[in-house]
């Protein structure tokens, strides 16, 4: 299990950030990030960012003069969005991982009314369209040289 390879503090950090950026919606019955444990794939990918995550934590602690776990969630949220944050580019990469993980979860997909089975062999019904609308195009005549 990769879970063993992810240090506790890092595991807690990524889950905390996940719950801030993807809290879900009680109103819409969409589960939040913390409704499920992150997959092994996600944890694997996260370990590659350990150095950057530590830098991000240090940046926040320096900025707010507090230990990370004492910083208010709204302040962390603001820092994530701030363009001037030195770790902004890192967070952009990290955010892709959160999105992929979150939007691959069965519970999330079902709550959003999306299909959970792969495209093949299911397929899709697609509106054929009204080709009668081409009459005006056709009547405009040849346009190639």
């Amino acid at each position, binding site marked *: 299990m990769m879970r063993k390879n992810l240090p506790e503090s890092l595991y807690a950090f990524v889950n905390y950030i996940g719950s*801030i950026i993807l809290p879900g919606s009680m109103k819409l019955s969409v589960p939040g990030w913390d409704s499920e444990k992150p997959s092994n794939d996600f944890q694997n990918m996260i370990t590659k960012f350990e150095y950057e995550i530590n830098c991000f934590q240090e940046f926040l602690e320096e900025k707010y003069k507090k230990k990370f776990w004492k910083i208010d969630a709204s302040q962390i949220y603001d820092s994530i969005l701030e363009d001037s944050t030195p770790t902004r580019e890192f967070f952009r990469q990290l955010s892709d991982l959160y999105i992929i993980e979150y*939007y691959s979860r069965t519970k999330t997909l079902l709550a*959003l009314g999306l299909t959970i089975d*792969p495209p093949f062999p*299911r397929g899709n019904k*697609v*509106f054929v369209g009204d080709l009668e609308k081409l009459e005006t195009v056709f009547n405009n005549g040849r346009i*190639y040289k």
Partner: protein
Amino acid sequence: MDEYISDVIVIGAGAAGAAVAYSLAKKGFKVTCIEQGDFLELKDYPSTKANWETYKISKFNPDPNIRGGRADYPVNNSNSPISIANYNGVGGSTILFSGHYPRLHPSDLRTKSLDGVAEDWPISYEELENYYDRNQENVAVAGLEGDPAYPPIKNLLPPVSLGKMGDTLANGFNKKGWHWWPAYSAIATKAFHFQNKCLNLGPCNLGCPQKAKSSADVTYWPKALSLGVKLMTNCRVSKIISVNSHQVSGVKYFINKEEKFLAGKIIVLACNGVGTPRILLNSKSKFAVDGLANSSGLVGKNLMIHPLAYIEGEFDDDLESNLGPQGCSISSHEFYETNTARGFSRGYTMQVLRGPSPIEFVIGNIKRKSMSWGQTHSEEFLDRFNKTAHISIICEDLPEEINFVDLDPSLTDDDGIPAPRINYRISSNTKKMLSHGIKRAEEVMYAAGATKTFCFAPVKAAGWHLMGTARMGLDPLSSVVNEWGQSHDVPNLFIADSSIFVTSGAVNPAATIQALALKVSDGVSSFYKKSVPEKRAAK
């Protein structure tokens, strides 16, 4: 032991390699095709798996530098605003292409005569048309006859469904009084040879497990193999060997890190507009000090990529945007031909694309800050997903020698072969075209009912169409190959891929690549009959 000597060695099993191998085998030639990648099997396709979207950022990413597979070679894109996209394997980039499969316009072959720019092709549209038709005997192409943007095109399968989004944008084009037509799509909308009927899976750009998309592995390869073509996979060609300044004898290639030699009477390169000059430039010898077939100095030069602009419109209604073949719905050639009043030469296609899948949608919107993190995130997703329409502007890229491929002095692939380096900048003509295209596409969006638009150019990860780097022509001083794809310098060396394009047109090149490959096979056949001493056994 007798050495097996092929009549023809084809390097690359993609769109061009498949067509040329099949055509030559059908003529009775002993053909060996050598390919650095492998066949994909049904189980390999992401669309068969629950987490299919995640493959877009890893094993099926179009950028070989990100994909980093065993068959991939690195590309140095640092001197280009557009990065190279491809797929290495049997079927080549057609495995991941979206299947948009239009022909060139007649004017594309006469830009010098008509508009005073670039060069005319050494062949006529009528001649090319014959090969387009022959290609369509083997490749499922959907569309609709009667398009006023083209001379008549026959034998098309029924067009792909427009979808609500395509139908909505058609209203916008009609309000503007502009041309639009169902997209020419390399998609079997009904069963065709080895191809099954399209199920509208959606992500054609992750490969088609249904075998409905006309990728070369399901069109030409089954036929080529049944005709006896020997296909060597997982073999990477490093160089072509010269025996004198006018003749090549075979290729050196790596398999499992071991270098070997394969002899052939004729060599056909089919490695795309980057892979082909890479091999030619790496095939330097005392007979070809500047690279093979390069007495003109034009190998690698005149790279054309088709810079793209992207325009997205937001609508109030659910347009079921992400349903249907990803790259094929409708397209417009309203601004294809030159109109000097627009301030630029030549023109562009507006290609309507289907909407993104959920993960792509969120990643894209978060990156451009049009969707929030936090409490409103889910609500915003539900409010906007599938309510977008998408247009890509495909600009004709004129050939310029300052845009070129050369060999990177330090970067190599796993076998130590120098990697290609892309040196490319977008011309002022193209910049004007991109800007014009964005404005017109926004007009269409609003005419169709969009409430808001978002656009950008150029699209960075869009260097799929790699053309012009070994162009054809009648004059050996200003071209690399003749009108049959035959090297001016080395008569038993041919090039069958998009390297030989003289101009780029403003359409996806796959149909033209495969049509030209059939023409090149005629050239190979004719040369063999005249010049290769041993007669091949009649089949």
